[in-house]
């Protein structure tokens, strides 16, 4: 029997039981949809994090508190940062002529301006922040290292913060308060976008010392160093480690490049995606059992038809392949519908929610291939049962 003929017969059998076939395929639809959606979100999240990290600037070296790869630090609680403003100054001096250094400290605070009050991310940093992170100042100026050293109360606003605090008014030279303390707006920075629904433009940058006073702490969260070129990165990493180690215990901080962070974030996201996709895969497995079950019912119902076909000359493999193709068609159609829904939901999620989603060809291939695999694996049992039916017995089946 020709494959095209088998496909036609299988299609007819499915059409004859539309509701039953639809309900059976629904499991496959949901499974494939989940796989596509989850892989898309995982891929999208990774892409977004990569983009955000790269938006910080290129050739960056980060010094962060605690061990990065060695598991939890002693005590187990949140790591207290060992960095101070002095450490940044020292590092800056050590790396003078080789690389630019800045540090950051952030906290959520309430800010008030002429247009109203809004929760912002107060970001303490040094004057070199703009050049280290490649941030363009669109109006006014960025505060200087002198401003920072003197703890002057000046502020640079992100576009969203400026709009929330000033509306249509010009913020430059105006006063705002952050946590009740007054700051003069001296500059505005470019748009940076949103990460996972958090508006990074809703930030107020203030000199590091001012921020420390504001928050009542002496530490700095992160040290950022910009190497002049990718080739210089390894050398800069070593320099930063050596310099910081002069005053800080080596176990209390880690020095990383963007690639290190991307690697770890990628690993974590990859594992998370894998777990979620595996759970979606279980739904495909369950769907497969449903397909097997309904195919067995179908074989039982069509016993006389199978007997007739055998009497008319169908061989065992003609019957087996016919039912296998029917199972494949059922799962394939379910898979296609699942793909359509998965892609549609992923696109809708990307468009309307903060959840990033990126549909990749390999996610589509994997999900659809799995659905066909389910069809084969779970179609074999009913198909073999059909093929093995004794024609003499099957013909007289009631």
């Amino acid at each position, binding site marked *: *029997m*020709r494959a095209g*003929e088998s496909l036609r017969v299988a299609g*007819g059998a499915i059409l*004859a039981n539309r509701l039953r076939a639809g309900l059976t395929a629904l499991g496959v639809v949901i499974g494939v949809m989940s796989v596509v959606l989850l892989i898309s979100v995982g891929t999208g999240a990774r892409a977004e994090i990569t983009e955000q990290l790269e938006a910080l600037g290129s050739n960056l070296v980060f010094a962060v508190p605690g061990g990065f790869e060695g598991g939890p630090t002693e005590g187990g609680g949140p790591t207290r940062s060992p960095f101070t403003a002095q450490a940044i100054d020292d590092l800056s001096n050590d790396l003078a002529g080789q690389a630019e250094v800045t540090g950051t400290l952030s906290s959520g605070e309430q800010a008030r301006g002429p247009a109203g009050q809004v929760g912002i991310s107060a970001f303490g940093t040094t004057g070199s922040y703009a050049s280290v992170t490649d941030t363009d100042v669109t109006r006014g100026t960025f505060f200087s290292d002198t401003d920072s050293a003197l703890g002057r109360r000046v502020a640079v606003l992100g576009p969203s913060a400026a709009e929330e605090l000033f509306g249509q008014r010009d913020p430059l030279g105006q006063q705002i308060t952050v946590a009740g303390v007054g700051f003069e707006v001296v500059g505005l920075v470019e748009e940076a976008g949103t990460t996972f629904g958090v508006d990074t433009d809703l930030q107020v940058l203030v000199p590091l010392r001012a921020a420390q006073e504001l928050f009542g702490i002496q530490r700095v969260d992160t040290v950022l160093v910009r190497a002049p070129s990718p080739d210089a990165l390894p050398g800069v990493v070593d320099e930063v480690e050596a310099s910081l180690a002069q005053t800080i215990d080596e176990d209390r901080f880690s020095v990383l490049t963007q690639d290190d962070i991307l690697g770890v974030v990628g690993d974590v996201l990859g594992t998370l995606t894998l777990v979620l996709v595996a759970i979606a895969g279980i739904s495909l497995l369950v769907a497969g059992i449903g397909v097997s079950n309904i195919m067995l019912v179908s074989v039982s119902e069509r016993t*006389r*038809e199978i007997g*007739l*076909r*055998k*009497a*008319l*000359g*169908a*061989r*065992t*493999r*003609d019957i087996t392949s016919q039912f296998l193709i029917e199972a494949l068609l059922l799962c394939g159609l379910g898979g296609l519908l699942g793909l359509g829904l998965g892609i549609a939901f992923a696109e809708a999620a990307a468009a309307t929610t903060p959840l990033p989603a990126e549909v990749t060809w390999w996610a589509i291939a994997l999900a659809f291939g799995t659905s066909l695999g389910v069809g084969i694996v779970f179609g074999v049992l009913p198909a073999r049962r059909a093929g093995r039916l*004794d*024609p*003499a017995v099957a*013909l*007289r089946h009631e």
Partner: protein
Amino acid sequence: MSHNGLPSPSAAASAAATADTTSAQAEPVVDAQDVTRHYVLGKDTIVEALRGVSLTVPPGAFVSIVGPSGSGKSTLLNLLGALDRPTSGALRFSGRDVADLSDAELASLRNTDIGFVFQQFHLLGRTPARDNVALPLVYRGESRRERRRRADEALDLVGLAHRRDHRPAELSGGEQQRVAIARALVSQPRLLLADEPTGNLDSQTGSDIMGLLQDLNAQAGVALVVITHDPEVAALAPVELPIRDGVLDQERATAGSLVPPPAVTAPPPPAEPDDSVASQRPPSQAEAAEEPPTR
């Protein structure tokens, strides 16, 4: 149907009229020698459905096998239709022993040599008459166009060309059985095997169907075996073989049973004279055909 390789109608008709047991015979369509079929139902329960049946159907013959339910009719039908294998004894189709054939070869044999007509018609419900008729050709890998051409021819032969696009539910019982007969003919078989072909039909329609089968047997030369419990239907055949308790009832066989019509137009095979006789004898007990052997 002369294109299909079957004996031409006129030749077959004359062959039926002039029974000549001494002339060279074609290979029998089906030849069963001392065939048994036992079913193992439980550990100690064996049903002997057939207990030694010998039967030879020459090309173009018309034989009826008549018996009550439980007589072994259906079991014999299974064997004559190559749907089943005997427990013991030799069963040959056109000289090929089923013991030497694989299941796939048996399927192929059914496809090319045997046409089935069932009591319940066994038509595919969602499928138009023409595609029902073409079904056997699907398993030969014929192109759709060729299948349709031959299905149309077969439908024409049973007088249903104008109903070819109708589904079974849109046809009367008699029409459905005609479609089933067309399906049995489409593969140009040597043997037409009809299992209670009139069982689901009223008497008038039933006799029309029997008439059609007889015409096909006489004109197209296809051997016809009708299995029935109805003595009137059985009596239509020149050779009537009663079956009871798993054996063909020699005593009650009609006189004509030992002189079936030979098909002289078939190519002369190297067959022995013994094979020309539809009989209940084991081959070793070959006797003069005119004397009914007794047991």
